[in-house]
């Protein structure tokens, strides 16, 4: 934070003055805040009881017990008065106590003979009589972090994320056997697939936004993830393409392997979010992971392997390379499933979904720029019949397989 000597600073501003100029506004803001809180509120006659807001962030079902994790997201402290389960006063214990400070959390333990597969409504009435409600559509035993459940969710993640990506990679010989003129088509197909995944990731974040505590400012968490991932991957892309950088300084086309790596990272980040969503959906009791759903995810994600492959059609790629690419793209699903199942949190989920979307869009950008030749704009290049067809087919394939996971 030491102010560096600025060669262009206006003459006559000594070091101390620079400091003052930097700190002065902060001091003034501090003074203003102090006045406002100490006497301004009273002077302006801003009073009244602030509306209490308590978010029930997580519902955990254990044998004959339900645990609620709550967070006070209101403007001031609040106290937990009564707990209603399906609109009946129920017994509970609470740690650390009934009084919850602003932004602080608490855990309620409820002795309750819940039944699997039934809906429940949990309502907390806070001190001023406001109701705070969370509805669970389908009660399911919350998995605890045992070796067995780790294994189960690991296998689940592998099944829906890792294996399909590898299966998709097996198309490489086929792609290579096709005429070279099809290259354009495969690459634009990949753009279509990725565009779909990007939008799909954002769609999932919208679902989480519907229930996340307002206090977390969820939309901006997603935006943070998108912007952060986009520019971070931009950096990664430059490093990967660095070897191919021409002396003139103009950005050269990244190599096929670099592109494939970029795509794999993007898809991997997307799959992290997807794994989170799967683990969480199971934990939150919002979806029964039916066999259909798993099969759907498997088919859907096979196309992701195809997307990673397209830049490699022309060049060389060893089995080891393909293995690494497959792990990069599919592996995060397992990690996501674990995190989602055992330590799920809405705000974290939003951040990761944002990162997934940002990463994908960055890859789309790189791929799309790679399509442009000569003085063509990206749109112009994508509008060429072969490219447009590939893009559309990619999107449609994704859409069709996504219907299998609907619901």
């Amino acid at each position, binding site marked *: 934070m030491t102010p560096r000597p600025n060669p262009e600073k206006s003459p006559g501003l000594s070091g101390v003055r620079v400091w003052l100029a930097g700190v002065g506004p902060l001091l003034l803001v501090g003074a203003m805040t102090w006045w406002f809180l100490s006497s301004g509120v009273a002077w302006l006659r801003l009073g009244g009881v602030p509306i209490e807001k308590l978010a029930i962030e997580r519902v955990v079902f254990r044998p004959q017990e339900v645990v609620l994790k709550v967070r006070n997201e209101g403007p001031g402290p609040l106290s937990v008065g009564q707990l209603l389960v399906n609109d009946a006063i129920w*017994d509970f214990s609470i740690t650390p106590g009934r009084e919850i400070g602003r932004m602080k959390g608490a855990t309620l333990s409820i002795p309750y003979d819940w039944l699997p597969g039934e809906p429940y409504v949990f309502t907390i009435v806070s001190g001023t009589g406001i109701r705070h409600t969370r509805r669970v559509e389908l009660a399911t035993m919350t998995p605890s972090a045992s070796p067995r459940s780790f294994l189960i969710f690991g296998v689940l993640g592998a099944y829906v994320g890792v294996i399909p990506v590898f299966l998709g990679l097996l198309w490489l010989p086929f792609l290579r056997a096709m005429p070279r003129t099809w290259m354009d088509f495969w690459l634009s197909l990949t753009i279509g697939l990725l565009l779909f995944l990007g939008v799909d990731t954002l769609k999932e974040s919208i679902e989480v936004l519907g229930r996340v505590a307002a206090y977390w400012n969820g939309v901006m968490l997603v935006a943070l993830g998108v912007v952060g991932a986009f520019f971070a991957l931009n950096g990664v892309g430059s490093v990967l393409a660095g070897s191919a950088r021409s002396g003139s300084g103009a950005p050269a086309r990244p190599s096929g392997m670099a592109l494939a790596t970029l795509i794999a990272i993007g898809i991997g980040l997307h799959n992290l979010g997807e794994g989170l969503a799967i683990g969480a959906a199971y934990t939150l009791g919002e979806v029964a992971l039916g066999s259909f759903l798993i099969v759907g995810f498997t088919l859907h994600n096979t196309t992701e392997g195809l997307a990673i492959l397209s830049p490699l059609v022309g060049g060389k790629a060893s089995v080891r390379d393909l293995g690494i690419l497959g792990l990069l793209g599919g592996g995060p699903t397992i990690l996501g499933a674990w995190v989602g199942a055992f330590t799920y949190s809405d705000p974290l989920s939003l951040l990761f979904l944002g990162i997934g979307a940002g990463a994908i869009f960055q890859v789309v950008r790189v791929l799309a720029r790679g399509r442009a030749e000569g003085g063509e704009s990206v749109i112009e290049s994508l509008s060429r019949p072969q490219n447009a067809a590939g893009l559309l087919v990619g999107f449609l394939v994704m859409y069709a397989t996504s219907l299998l996971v609907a619901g």
Partner: protein
Amino acid sequence: MPSRRLLGAGLLAAAALAALLVGPARIVAQRPPGGPPAPEISPLARAARDHAVRTLTEFDYGKATPLRDGTSLREYWIEAKNVEVEVAPGVRFPAWTFNGAVPGPTIRCTEGDSIRIHFTNNGTMPHSMHFHGIHRAGMDGVFEQVVPGQTFIYEFRAEPFGLHLYHCHTMPVKMHISRGLFGVFLVDPKQPRPKAREMVMVMNGFDTDLNGEDNEFYTVNGYANVFFRDYPIPVKAGELQRIYLVNMTELDLVNSMHTHATFFHVYPTGTSLTPTLYTDTITMGQGERAILEFRYPYPGRYLFHAHQNEFAELGWLGQFDVKP
């Protein structure tokens, strides 16, 4: 060979177990519903509990002056004011009250008495006192709104005998009643009813989030589950019990009461000395009331509650502790 102390502990445990068994449901039975008891009872909770228990047995006969015809002039001083009360453990309610608590005092007199109510409005909006009874138009507490800071004197003769009520009649009335402006107006017949253990129970609902649509909690005498959790009502086996039951519920059409393990005689509105019904469950509309008379032949603990069990499980639950 267990020591005597151990034996005592065993007996205590057995008694505790027996107490557990009287709970309304298998899970609730382990502890009264409503969360952990506060380490020390808060002043608001104490006030709510004490007021509910006091309302059960406290009657306000006013300042009585005997009149020549054998009746009395009874004078009451009632003040409307805003008070924050607790309606369930840990849940506060910005109540509008008669004399600082919900329900207001039970005004009791004998048929034919002259009643004079000095009503002062120390609240923040116009209020009134509308008595159920037979009186002149100007004393009806509807068109004569009392603005904050003003005093109004209601004068009327207490008739007919029976179990009546009073409440604020400022519009929107459902809001003024829902916020707590009501109480019992009990007019005894000149020939007194048989001697009995008498109790006042006022049923109501509290719309704590003030959305005007539904009640969050239901109480008897203003505090959820008070006669279940804090003060099981002690009664003597065989003794005649008389409940003055008044329904002041707003936002719900009816309220009800069911006594376990005994039946009661019903005197609707208390305007007759002959019961009309012998039952164990009575359902009443808003503003309806009845006198119930019964005895418990066997000692033990017996529940009483609204037989709309959704009300019972939102605070309208109590128990009699019948002693031999």
